[in-house]
């Protein structure tokens, strides 16, 4: 009897400890495809598809305050600082894009007095996240055109392919709906952000990431523009991923749902049984 009580006492201690594990989890830096944490600042020699970019001098360098976004148990969204230096004169544009995916936009309509989804429209190649920031109003910077390399949020979304065909006016409405939802979720933080320039050659911009952030390799680019032409560009990947306990759980759930389901059942049986026993004895 005494041993039983001792066991129960141990369980009593273990239950809150178990509940706290997610919070105490420290993010071990292990993401398969990501660059090592100490990536040197990207230099403009980075290969870019656009041929308009001169290859030679490092007119532009940038770095991020963190090499990755780690979704830990305490993750509530994050602000990363992007900073760098450029050779004046010129203006700086920064574009951050999340991995593309197919999104389905649903539209609610009133049906017999109730609001329910009646319309749906798929879009391919929708960036999970899109943030563009510039040191000057974008229209002025892009007045001469940049060969489609730099796209404002509206232009980027206008280029998104629709799945199936539909009237143009309807498609536009769904496109606007898509932007609305993404903006609400903080995934398209603003039409245009502000790149701050200091001492005529240092630049910085805050990248806001919300708590509901899709995982994947994000693409961060900075451009140096002179007279509306891109004269230098740097690019680097920014991995966004769950880490530690969260990553393991999510991994199980998606790769091995059966196993995860059994685990969830056992967990509930155990906690329910022990909890019930303990509370009845108190």
């Amino acid at each position, binding site marked *: 009897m005494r041993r039983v009580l001792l066991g129960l006492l141990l369980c009593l201690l273990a239950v809150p400890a178990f509940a706290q594990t997610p919070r105490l989890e420290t993010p071990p830096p292990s993401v398969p495809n990501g660059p090592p944490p100490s990536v040197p600042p990207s230099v403009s020699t980075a290969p870019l598809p656009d041929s308009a970019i001169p290859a030679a001098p490092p007119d532009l360098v940038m770095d991020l305050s963190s090499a990755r976004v780690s979704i830990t148990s305490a993750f509530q969204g994050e602000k990363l600082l992007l900073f760098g230096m450029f050779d004046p004169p010129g203006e700086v544009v920064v574009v951050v894009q999340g991995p593309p*995916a197919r999104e389905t936009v649903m539209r609610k309509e009133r049906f017999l007095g109730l*609001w329910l989804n009646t319309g749906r429209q798929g879009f391919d190649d929708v960036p999970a996240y899109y943030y563009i920031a510039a040191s000057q109003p974008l229209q002025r910077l892009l007045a001469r055109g940049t060969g489609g390399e730099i796209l404002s949020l509206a232009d980027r979304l206008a280029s998104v392919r629709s799945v199936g065909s539909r009237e143009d006016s309807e498609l536009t409405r769904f496109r606007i*709906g898509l932007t609305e939802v993404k903006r609400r979720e903080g995934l398209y933080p603003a039409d245009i952000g502000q790149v701050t320039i200091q001492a005529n050659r240092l630049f910085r911009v805050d990248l806001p990431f919300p708590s509901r952030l899709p995982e994947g390799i994000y693409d961060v680019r900075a451009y140096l523009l002179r007279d509306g032409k891109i004269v230098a560009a740097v690019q680097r990947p920014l991995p966004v991923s769950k880490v530690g306990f969260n990553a393991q759980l999510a991994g199980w759930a998606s790769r091995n749902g059966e196993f995860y389901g059994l685990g969830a*059942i056992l*967990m509930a049986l155990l906690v329910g049984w022990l909890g019930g026993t303990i509370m009845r004895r108190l």
Partner: protein
Amino acid sequence: MEIYLPIAEQSINVFVLLGLGGMAGLLAGMFGVGGGFLATPMLIFVGIPPAVAVASQANQVIANSVSSLQVQWRRGNVDLRMGLVLLLGGVLGSSAGVVLFTYLKRIGQIDFVIAVLYVVMLSAIGGLMSFESLRTYFRQRRHPEAPRGKLHQHYLVHRLPLKMRFYKSKLYISALLPIGLGFLIGILSAILGVGGGFVLVPAMIYLLGMPTSVVIGTSNFQVLFVAANVTFLQSATNGTVDVVLAVLLILGGVVGAPIGSRLAAKLPGVVLRGLMAVLILAVAAELLVELLRAPSSPYSLGIREVLR
């Protein structure tokens, strides 16, 4: 204190979840029902995606029923034979329910169906309960020693074939009845993430005519296995069970349940049922308003498919 839920993919305050679990536990302790039918809509109110709320709530129901079953089993209040027959229907129903759930999720109507089913169910139950408690209240005031009705009545359903003897429940009824009942509860369980005790218990008493002593235990037995089936299938097909969410709900429930049973011992039954009815009706009204009111934006996003 915020915590990031790995499957719901968002952060939420720990105490909100513990509180919701505690409230479900409180109801469980007070009325012997799981409380899932209030916890799931509440989870949706606080912004958990309905698919995750339903699946994780099913996981929580397991813990809830195992701790009540512990007591009921020891007291011999489980009609195992009846439980197994109910379970046969329950497993079939919940499996069908998960398939239906997956389909509704794919066509983007799951949130709507969940809301409508909740409104219908909660207003029916809340209405019946408030009617019943008002009637009891007034009858008690008029004749304190109200005569009891007939214990066992015969309806048309008793003429169904495949009759089976249930010794512990002292019944000789068609097995189709409990199988069908289990099937319906199974579907509810899969789509709404509830154990279904709050429908099952009255159905067992009034429809099957089981003695009240074995109803709670047998219902716990059926609910436990059906919830396990739902958890497994939801996890295997939709991957929407969030164990972090479930653990927090369970821990809240573990603390709430004994408080609930202590409260239940202090307050008179009529008042208790009246309070519960008001609570249920309030949730139903809130859900109904959500359905009727024009949304702030008519647009929402379905499932995001990463192209490989």
